[in-house]
């Protein structure tokens, strides 16, 4: 009976994985993120949508302290991962980023072999005791990245020789190799064709069973397809955050409505 109904996209309440409280971000004098409060759940895909320059990528980058690398960037407020402040002085950003992985807009494999691309993270974090274990991690990660079958016979070939879609899936495999708890994706499909996009979206849905996934996307259809929760950013404000089904059928805020229906907001 149930298999005849539209897949229920209702969101069961999950554990809060990341909680952001009164987060403000400044680039020099410009105020990029204004008092954002949001709770990102575990085993859930959360989509950030909004027009260019609305702060969604900036906010995403706060979640694994990627903004630390920008000198003029200041982050205020609290971002808690499992209840612990990630901006605490005792937190090592490198360890944090192993826990909170990231996939970028353009595929950026290292100029190394496919194998070494995936093995890099586990090696520097000492996740494998020997070669056999490392082999296992590499295979598992490539399988999880839904690219194993395509590359298993040429693991020594350079990662940069793959097609764009394959490179992106390699980057996802690389990101999951360190067993992260959260996966941040900044427009992971914008450089991909529709087939590779569909493969990555399928992958995101599978990854959800183990990770909390946060995706920034300019494609509203993609947000609607892959996410269970959607956050709409506008001019540095988090305007609306709610179940994806509701945001796309009956948003509460007129600015959200204007944006998702393609009106001048």
């Amino acid at each position, binding site marked *: 009976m149930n298999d005849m109904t539209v897949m229920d996209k209702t969101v069961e309440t999950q554990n809060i994985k990341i909680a952001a409280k009164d987060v403000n971000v400044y680039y020099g004098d410009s105020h990029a993120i204004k008092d954002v409060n949001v709770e990102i759940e575990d085993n859930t895909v959360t989509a950030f949508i909004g027009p260019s320059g609305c702060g969604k990528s900036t906010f995403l980058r706060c979640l694994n302290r990627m903004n630390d690398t920008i000198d003029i960037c200041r982050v205020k407020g609290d971002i808690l991962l499992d209840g612990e402040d990630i901006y605490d002085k005792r937190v090592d950003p490198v360890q944090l980023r192993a826990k909170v992985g990231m996939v970028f807009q353009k595929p950026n494999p290292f100029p190394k072999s496919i194998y070494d691309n995936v093995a890099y993270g586990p090696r520097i974090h000492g996740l494998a005791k020997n070669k056999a274990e490392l082999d296992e991690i590499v295979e598992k990660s490539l399988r999880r990245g839904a690219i194993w079958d395509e590359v298993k016979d040429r693991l020594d070939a350079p990662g940069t020789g793959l097609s764009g879609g394959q490179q992106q899936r390699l980057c996802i495999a690389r990101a999951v190799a360190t067993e992260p708890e959260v996966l941040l994706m900044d427009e992971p499909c914008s450089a991909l064709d529709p087939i590779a996009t569909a493969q990555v979206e399928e992958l995101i849905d599978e990854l959800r069973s183990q990770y909390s996934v946060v995706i920034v996307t300019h494609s509203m259809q993609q947000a609607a397809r892959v996410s269970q929760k959607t956050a709409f950013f506008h001019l540095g404000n988090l305007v609306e955050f709610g179940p994806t089904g509701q945001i796309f059928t009956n948003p509460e805020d007129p600015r959200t409505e204007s944006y998702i229906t393609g*009106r*001048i907001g």
Partner: protein
Amino acid sequence: MTAQHIASAFDRDLEAIQARIMKMGGLVEDAIREAARALETRDEELALTVRQGDKAIDGLEELINEETARLIALRAPAASDLRLVLSVMKIAVNLERIGDYAKNMAKRTGVLAQGPNISEGTSALRRMAREVERMLKDALDSYIQRDVELARDVIERDRDVDQMYNALFREFLTHMMEDPRNISACMHLHFIAKNTERMGDHVTAIAEQVIYLVTGEKPEEDRKKADTTSTTPQEI
């Protein structure tokens, strides 16, 4: 939501579809009015015109279905645009059904014109049809003006139509018991009354779509049906 889309062709498509709904609504209003007039005045020629006019209504429904399907495929409407497209599709179905009932009324008029004239019945039916026609006009106005209050009013008024039907049902029973020669005519008149009552339900459904379109929520279901004939005992 009055602001324009960035893609102006999207606005034109939506407007075109809504214009078709209004045109279809106008034709259906005419069909109800003319069918009821033909019934009361035993005008077979007018009844034939109504029957032929139903083709145009069906054609419009077909066109609206095609255009909404195209719009969904090409524009992937969301939020209020999505609700607009969904409501248009449903309203078109309701209008088409009402058109069919009007056509059926005209069809029975042809038969009734040959038999005894039960003029109290046909006059009451015309009043009932006029009320449904007014409700339809208001429902379509509430749609164009996005007027939730007017839509709620239309839903409320369906009770009156139900009560008119109850009264007619009893009246026709009485006629049939008085003189069995009235049975054939009264059976036809009863079907017309029932169909007109169903028209009211379809108009109510249109008004409910207006509420959904504007608020994003289905209206609360506390309305009790006032049609009690299904439980009316045989002896009256």
